[in-house]
């Protein structure tokens, strides 16, 4: 990174000036990051409020507070507590899980294309979850466990295929495995007697519709454990970004990178277990957060961006068309794919990165 000196360092007082310049140069990105996170949190809060209060059934703020206080308002209580609030809360939680998980993948693998939804990890979790739900009749936390196993299996398979080459081989192997996982999911659909559209949408494209509070609570508990662990494991992310060898030279144990990747897989898997593989959220959040943060990686910002994307996508899917309630995964997929194509067209995935 080049630091532009604010003032020419004069020969007479080099020490004080130079130290000052360096201090300010070091402080500027941190200040920017703080401002960015605060701004994103504000946007997220605004989107959350809009999602809960506005739409086809408007709820006033005093009414909303009374509903939260336990008061029964005919109609409004049901809509807020059973539809709007769970959808909004789930959207935020899933968005954070996918955003942080995706950014972990992209940063440690040093490739914007190596996000869990592109390389099949999300679909692996989804395939495992839908299999145990539709064919074995499981529910609750065992589904999450199955999703985690599915995601881990795909992640390990991709890693085994890619070996030390990372990069392009990893992405291609992931695309192949994603296709395989999609076939598994489609096979499960042909086996269920009743063609349940909601089931298909949830597990093939991702949706926050009609999720019960217990699943949301399960996801919240999982995130309450995983996010602090991620914050701890990500302390050395700056060094990890420089590549395995450089990181090892700077004293970062390789095991810590593995732990970070494992946390990324777990975050994505618990998110998928709750809302399905919401397309491209994990892929989009990292690069957007990075661009907003002036080219520096920030897992926190990526999580917030992910939450905003899922909330906005769900809002657009629910209300953009009069009589049509599109699941969030259709919206993010429809608008995320062009972004990926644009990234490819700009050639940002040249030989080194890809």
């Amino acid at each position, binding site marked *: 990174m080049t630091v532009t000196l604010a003032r020419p360092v004069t020969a007479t007082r080099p020490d004080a000036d130079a130290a000052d310049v360096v201090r300010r140069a070091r402080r500027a990105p941190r200040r920017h990051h703080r401002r960015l996170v605060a701004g994103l949190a504000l946007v997220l809060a605004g989107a959350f409020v809009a999602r809960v209060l506005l739409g086809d059934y408007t709820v006033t703020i005093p009414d909303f507070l009374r509903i939260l206080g336990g008061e029964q308002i005919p109609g409004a209580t049901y809509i807020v507590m059973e539809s709007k609030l769970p959808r909004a809360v789930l959207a935020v939680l899933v968005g954070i899980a996918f955003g942080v998980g995706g950014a972990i993948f992209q940063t440690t693998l040093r490739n914007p*294309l190596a996000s869990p939804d*592109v390389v099949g990890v999300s679909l692996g979790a989804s395939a495992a979850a839908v299999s145990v739900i539709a064919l074995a009749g499981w529910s609750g936390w065992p589904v999450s466990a199955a999703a985690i196993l599915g995601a881990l299996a795909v992640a390990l398979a991709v890693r085994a*295929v890619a*070996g030390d*080459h990372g990069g*392009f*081989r990893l*992405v*291609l*192997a992931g*695309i*192949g*495995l*994603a*296709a*395989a996982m*999609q*076939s598994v999911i*489609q*096979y499960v*659909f*042909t*086996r269920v007697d009743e*063609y349940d*559209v909601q089931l298909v*949408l949830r597990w*093939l*494209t991702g949706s926050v519709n009609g999720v019960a509070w217990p699943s949301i609570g399960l996801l919240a508990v999982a995130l309450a454990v995983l996010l602090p662990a991620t914050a701890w494991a990500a302390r050395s992310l700056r060094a990890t970004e420089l590549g395995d060898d450089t990181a090892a030279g700077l004293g970062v144990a390789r095991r810590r990178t593995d732990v970070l990747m494992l946390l990324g897989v777990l975050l994505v898997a618990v998110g998928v277990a709750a809302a399905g593989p919401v*397309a*491209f959220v994990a892929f989009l959040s990292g690069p957007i957060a990075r661009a907003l943060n002036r080219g520096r990686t920030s897992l926190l910002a990526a999580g917030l961006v992910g939450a905003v994307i899922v909330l906005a996508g769900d809002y657009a899917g629910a209300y953009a*068309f009069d009589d*049509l*309630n*599109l*699941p969030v*995964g*259709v*919206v*993010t*997929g*429809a608008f*995320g*794919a*062009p972004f*990926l*194509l644009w990234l*490819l*067209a*700009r*050639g940002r*995935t*040249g*030989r080194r990165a*890809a």
Partner: protein
Amino acid sequence: MTALVPTREDVLRPPGGGRGRRPALPVSVAISVAALAGAGVLSLLVGARAVPLEAVWDSAHPLHAVVAARLDRTLLGLAVGAALGLAGALMQGLTRNPLADPGILGVNAGATFAMVVGMTAFGLSGMGAYLPLAFVGAAVAAAAVHGIAALGRDGATPLKLAITGAALSAGLASWTTGLLLADRKTMESFRFWQVGTVGGRGTDVLLAGLPFLLVGALLALAGARLLDTLALGDDLARGLGRRTTRDRLVIAVAIVLLAGTATALAGPIAFVGLVVPHVVRSLVGPDHRRVLPFSMLGGAVLVVVADTVGRVVLPPAEVQVGIMAAVVGVPFFVALIRRTGRAL
């Protein structure tokens, strides 16, 4: 010192996997035809209800109706498989890309999306409407994937083509789902078609698509020499007097006809076009005049066998041919990536 000068034998028999190891042409032809005949007969006999051989020709046999029903899907499987195998070989030759396949490069997804748009937005139905829609969709998707992947410094590398195809497929799948959600009736009829299946489609479906398959196959086989010249690189091909743009267009039209028709007839089936040409090249060498016809035979065999195995592998339900193709194709794809290594 003399060892440095290659002898005639060295040139004709390059070391390691050269021509010397391959079976002679008549042997390959015999193997392929036998495999095709065997696959066809098996497809008539095997299924939820096994049928004895004499029921095939004895019209008085009580199980003859079962054979007649299976004949439809066998013929459709042969046609679709031949089209996919040929389309894959053409794409791999045209893009000089070992990972090319109508499914992976998003051509099938384009055809699917165009058909769904026609069905839901314009209320079209019937093969006469589906086929042109599939052609338009396949052509636009193929052009878009190649155009986007060709941008940037490196040009259309296999990696960028594959990722662009996957991205376009994912995006189109989302739009397709959105359109289908607005139209539940179409969605129900799409349930099995979307997975890729040759079962329960009827003879009229095959007859409607057959002319386009024939035209596509003729164009392709006539273009085998064009592909061989293009394989030398654009400059050399032009030096040899070829009009490379026109040649490419001929091949591209054949690909669109074959892949579009196959998708309209049996749904999006991936990986057949990827696997078959690689196996064929290892048997008959890189000459497209041989690769193309053998890829037709190989694709037909693969789809019919996959369909037959899919009927009995997980009873009582059937596993659709699109899923079976992925079961075979994904390990192959992964092995291909591992082997090709940095050359990509």
